[in-house]
């Protein structure tokens, strides 16, 4: 049977029309692919073959003419799907089935998409390697001894492994872009407020955004069209019209001013934890040259407060997370510790037993930074520096249209390598974090492989609500890059 999941969404839609494929046909092909490679990839957190086939049958009953009709989509396990397991890859939400759909899920269902199941993630999105999941780590399809990145590691790996056509992830500090980079796929974090957060289980409320993870830029634009838009259920959702992002797929960067921040270079960011960026640096330079040859103008810019970004992120993110995760206490849903006589005991035991180590660490850090006597020195201070970081971008965008950087300082590392050193892990997000702090949109796309055959990603950032220029630049690069795309050998 043909594996329909190897196609991009645009290709599959054509095939569906040409060959009158049914959702059941596609679902069967998904199952075939799953049976073949999932044991190696381990990208799913929840996948139920029978429900999938049932869902496909139901989908076939309806005359669906939606934009994504019958196209397979995978959702990160922190996005609520009504009556389906949604656990953030955490034991504390064991068995949890939300009684409602996230807004993006409602939109996907309306577009006729075939929802496959939930992808694995770092527990509560706390991580950059998909190793803190309560279930199992997900493997990088290009080398299953290596991490896929995180926290949307499952979504990125499933797209790269052709187990799905499209995926949604969430990005708080790089959690869509970094795994997309490590797995050789496209991942975008939209402008804060572009996509509704209603139904996304919160980590850092002022940072989180749901975004597409896809095989190419065109699919990214298509999926962005479906999930974007104002939501009255989300006070932070922007009431700004959604352009047709497919219209940005124009292969022209003439006169586009590309800012290269001098701080995003190498060693200065890492102190003694330097990991040489040689191979990544080389590929980024090649990409810059290609764009220049196509008529773009390269501008040197400065983002002087970059080196504080990781610190600001961990203080703000963990503070918000400590409050957002307080609701996981065994009262209304999820895990509850057994045989507790008193309430406080129940709270403590429940949260001790069911939160993983990274979750506990971040909650304790966040509680500390908000506590009396420390609020000014940490949280308040971090929010002020955050403003400085945003101002850096405002200044930069007066001199350029987009900013280009590597997505990740390095390619996929071996599982277990960084997990024992939290700070080392946090520094992997150095290039992606600033976009979340400033709320600006950013996209990662593949720009080559290193000598081990591991994918390298390049990142574009643009100013608020300028996803169109991001897509145009990304599309142009993708259409003109000469290096060969290689699917992982599974």
């Amino acid at each position, binding site marked *: 049977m043909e594996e329909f999941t190897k196609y991009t969404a645009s290709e599959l839609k054509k095939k569906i029309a040409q060959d009158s494929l049914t959702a059941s046909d596609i679902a069967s092909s998904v199952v075939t692919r799953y049976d073949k490679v999932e044991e190696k990839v381990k990208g799913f957190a929840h996948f139920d073959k029978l429900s999938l086939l049932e869902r496909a049958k139901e989908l076939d009953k309806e005359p669906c003419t939606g934009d994504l009709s019958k196209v397979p989509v995978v959702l990160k396990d922190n996005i609520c799907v009504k009556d389906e397991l949604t656990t953030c890859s955490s034991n504390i939400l064991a*068995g949890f*089935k939300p*009684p*409602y759909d996230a807004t993006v899920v409602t939109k996907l269902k309306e577009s006729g998409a075939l929802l496959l199941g939930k992808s694995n993630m770092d527990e509560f999105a706390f991580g950059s390697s998909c190793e803190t999941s309560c279930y199992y780590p997900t493997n990088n399809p290009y080398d299953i001894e290596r991490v896929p990145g995180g926290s949307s590691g499952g979504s990125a790996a499933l797209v790269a492994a052709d187990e799905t056509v499209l995926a949604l992830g969430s990005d708080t500090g790089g959690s869509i872009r970094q795994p997309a980079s490590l797995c050789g796929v496209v991942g975008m974090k939209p*402008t*804060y*407020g572009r996509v509704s957060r209603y139904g996304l289980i919160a980590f850092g409320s002022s*940072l989180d955004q749901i975004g597409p993870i896809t095989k190419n830029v065109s699919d990214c634009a298509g999926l962005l069209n479906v999930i974007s838009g104002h939501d009255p259920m989300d*006070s*932070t959702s922007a009431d700004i019209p959604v352009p047709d992002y497919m219209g940005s797929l124009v292969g022209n960067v003439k006169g586009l001013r590309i800012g290269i921040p001098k701080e995003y270079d190498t060693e200065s960011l890492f102190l003694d934890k330097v990991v040489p960026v040689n191979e990544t640096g080389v590929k980024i330079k090649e990409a810059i040259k290609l764009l220049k040859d196509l008529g773009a103008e390269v501008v040197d810019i400065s983002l002087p*407060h970059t*080196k*504080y970004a*990781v*610190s*600001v992120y*961990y*203080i703000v993110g963990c503070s918000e997370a400590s409050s957002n995760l*307080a609701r996981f*206490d*065994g*009262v*209304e*849903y*999820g*895990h*509850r510790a057994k045989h*507790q006589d*008193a*309430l*406080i005991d*129940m709270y*403590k*035991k429940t*949260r*001790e037993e069911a939160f993983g*180590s990274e979750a*506990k*660490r971040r*909650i*304790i*850090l966040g*509680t*500390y930074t908000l*506590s009396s006597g420390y609020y000014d*020195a*940490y949280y308040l*201070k*971090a*929010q*002020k*520096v*955050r*403003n400085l970081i*945003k101002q850096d971008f405002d200044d930069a965008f007066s001199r350029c249209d987009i900013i280009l950087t590597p997505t990740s300082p390095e390619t996929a590392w071996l599982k277990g390598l960084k997990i024992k050193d*939290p*700070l080392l892990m*946090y520094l992997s997000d150095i290039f992606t974090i600033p976009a*979340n702090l400033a709320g*600006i949109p950013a996209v990662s796309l593949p720009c080559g492989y290193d000598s081990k055959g591991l994918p390298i990603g390049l990142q574009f950032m643009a100013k608020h609500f300028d996803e169109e220029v991001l897509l145009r630049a990304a599309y142009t690069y993708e259409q003109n890059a000469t290096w060969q795309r290689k699917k992982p050998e599974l």
Partner: protein
Amino acid sequence: MSIKKDTIRYVADLARIGLSEQEEELFAEQLNHILAYVDQLNKLDTKGIEPMSHAVSMSNVLRDDILKDGLSNSDALNNAPEKEDGSFKVPKIIE
């Protein structure tokens, strides 16, 4: 600023998370490491800078005072670890 084990214990209590002694020690060490790193923020002069709590400048989001369908009692309690007579059941709070 160095965090000691009893600070970790106090903070863990505030956060209602039980920790073993080893965890208390490990977290104290790890948190000290992280806090030493984030301490770089204090070298920055932020006099006159407003704190930023939102990435984009929107304001005054409101909704009308109109009734919306909620959840049925059974949907609300569907995930409850313990329930009785339509209510969530919890261990008694010792006063």
